[in-house]
């Protein structure tokens, strides 16, 4: 039995999809607990797994800690709860009354009895506790068992847990359980959302950003690092490769047909990202592309950029409208930063009329003029690594 104290406040963290796992479940749970531990660490929280719940106690700022834990992938919801001894039912009643005395409207009690040996069954707890609370708060509370405005939950486990608010969290799977992938992070609206979506499935991210100084500024780079920082809250840290890209863009601009410059540039970005992914032990690439959004995202252009790498390329936004992506970005908190007005590497050399239906021969003709291996090697070698 945990804790000798009679009563204390803690966070009860519930997980979602991990329930569906069979023999692998301990592996996922271990990862989840570790991620919650990392999230609670700045708040001094103690974290443990018990009886199908993760608990966090002793944090110095409960509210901030909860907000942080709600961002951990794999967490379904978080409840600030009161833990107390289950044998003293009178004390439970008094605590329930305390929690409901300032609440107005309709309510019900919802008991869950994980300890089947407990001396009352769930319906009895509901009735007894409901009656106790109602008698003392009749002027502002009414019972509605079908559509209550407030639910007072009681879980009888090794201890009793009372809570009346459930805060939904991000869901998904704990980061680290789904391998590692490299995200092409531009600074626009789409790529952070794409990274978020894949990370949510438990994938650890490493970001690759292309920097075109002096065509793009230190501010533009900082903006990307700020975006990576926002993602890193969800992703348990983030490593960003800032790849110097100006020389490659200049070579392409000078030697390749104008309408193919964007496409060839994208092919280089994919090649470099794959090179970095391999170095980092990542097994896939992630991009924020969506069919037809811009010239380099037509079906033909996607084929042309896809064909230069052998790794799978995840494009979680492929079927999304721009407005949906913007909504998503607002939800995860990257939108405002993405909208800062710094030029990014993709727009610097945009041709007036990029090829939307590129021909393989013309791509080859352009690329043959470039010393591909040397350019890529130099870019990867000179990449600045920022750990967030």
């Amino acid at each position, binding site marked *: 039995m945990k804790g000798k104290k009679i009563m204390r406040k803690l966070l009860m963290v519930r997980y979602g999809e991990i329930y569906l796992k069979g023999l692998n479940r301990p592996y996922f749970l271990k990862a989840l607990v570790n991620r919650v531990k990392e999230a609670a660490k700045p708040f001094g929280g103690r974290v443990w797994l018990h009886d199908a719940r993760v608990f966090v106690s002793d944090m110095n700022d409960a509210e901030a800690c909860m907000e942080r834990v709600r961002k951990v992938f794999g967490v379904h919801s978080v409840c600030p709860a009161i833990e107390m001894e289950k044998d003293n039912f009178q004390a439970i009643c008094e605590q329930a009354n305390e929690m409901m005395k300032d609440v107005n409207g309709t309510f019900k009690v919802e008991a869950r009895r994980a300890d089947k040996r407990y001396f009352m069954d769930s319906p009895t707890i509901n009735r007894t506790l409901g009656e106790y609370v109602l008698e003392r708060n009749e002027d502002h509370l009414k019972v509605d068992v079908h559509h209550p405005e407030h639910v007072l939950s009681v879980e009888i486990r090794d201890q009793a847990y009372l809570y009346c608010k459930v805060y939904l969290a991000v869901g998904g799977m704990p980061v680290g359980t789904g391998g590692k992938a490299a995200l092409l992070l531009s600074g626009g609206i789409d790529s952070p959302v794409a990274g978020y979506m894949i990370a949510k499935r438990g994938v650890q991210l490493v970001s690759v950003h292309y920097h075109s*100084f*002096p*065509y*793009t*500024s*230190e*501010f533009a780079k900082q903006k990307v690092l700020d975006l990576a920082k926002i993602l890193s809250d969800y992703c348990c840290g983030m490593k960003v490769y800032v790849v110097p890209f100006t020389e490659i*863009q*200049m070579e392409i*601009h*000078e030697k390749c047909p*104008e309408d193919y410059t964007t496409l060839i540039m994208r092919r280089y970005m994919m090649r470099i990202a794959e090179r970095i992914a391999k170095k980092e032990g990542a097994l896939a690439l992630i991009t924020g592309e969506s069919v037809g959004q811009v010239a380099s995202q037509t079906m033909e252009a996607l084929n042309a950029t896809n064909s230069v790498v052998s790794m799978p390329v995840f494009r979680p936004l492929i079927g999304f409208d721009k407005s949906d992506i913007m909504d998503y970005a607002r939800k995860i908190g990257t939108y405002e930063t993405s909208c*800062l*007005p*710094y*030029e990014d590497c993709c727009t*610097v*050399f*945009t*041709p*007036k009329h990029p090829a939307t239906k590129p021909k393989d021969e013309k791509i080859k003709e352009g690329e043959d003029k470039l010393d591909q291996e040397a350019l890529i090697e130099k870019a990867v070698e000179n990449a600045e690594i920022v750990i967030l």
Partner: protein
Amino acid sequence: MPIYLDNSATTRPCERAIEAMTACMREGFYNPSALYAPALAAEKMLRRGRELILSSLHAPSPFRVIYTGGGTEADNLAILGVLSGVHGGGRILYGAGEHPAVKEACQSAPGFEAVEMPYDREGRIDLSALENLMIPETKMICCMQVNNETGAIQPLSEISRLHARLCPQAHFHVDGVQGYLRVPFDMKALEADSYALSGHKIHGPKGVGALVIRNTVRLHPRMVGGGQENNLRSGTENTPGIAGLIAAIEDFPKANQLQELKMHLWQCLRELIPGASVNGPAPDSEYAAPHILNVSLPPVRSETMLHALEGEGIYIGMGSACAAHKQKVSAVLTAMHAPRHLAESALRFSLCPQNTMEEMERTADCCKRNHAILSKFQRR
């Protein structure tokens, strides 16, 4: 050592200002409104600063000095503080290339019609248009002394004459933030009613400035509270800032080489880069401020050249630093009808007396080298 040529954005505080501020914080920190002797010393320092500012502007006694939290506050106080005492609306005139601190204040004055005074191709107010614009209902005229982007000295005496003839009731406010001490100014001769200045543009600290205003003008405070500054700007006086401002004014060299430095930079640029052209009055003209040179080096875009120079330790500006993150093409150059390719490649070099001829040469040389490389790689 980096070369700093963005002095219109802000300047490096001079040693004397830093020393004066440090001393003020260490020893002279007393509240000027307090009743013991050291507080009186602080009060005397404020008084000395007011006299210094008035004499630097040839403003005799009917003018007063109100210390503010900078140029923007001084402009706001003059414009909105005067207009809130004017009933029945009317017209406000402001130059097409005014700083946002003036433009936005004019546009936000409730019940008034804010009208732009157009610029000519040199970036000066087009006097031929003023006859029609200055109607008798004009309640305020706002004009900057020197344009912050092009260095164009505005035709203040001509405006003053028209003002006296066409709408003598209007308040005439001059935004002197970019001109103060670098271009002579005579408040009395110009019959200006108010003048705004800022500390950090003249090697003083940020967060301090002043409004010089005619005593007879009815001014409504924008900040109320303890009634400091004759009830016109409440809040304990920023004594360290004001100490720094005073030191900076005293330290600013009256005889300086700004004009020679600017001409040297321009001659080097013109020699090395054939397509170079000036935005604003010709650098040797009497209408060009000695410390600002706005040059276009097409086809290289402003931002690209700025960062290329940054890469070599040379810091310059593109336009108003306050607007650099907001808009692509400068509002001032647009008001001058500058062709788009020139507006998009405009660079602002703004100098200070500490710059050297050698720095001008290195800067021009660096522009030439980067221009040769970058002009090949521009958006087609």
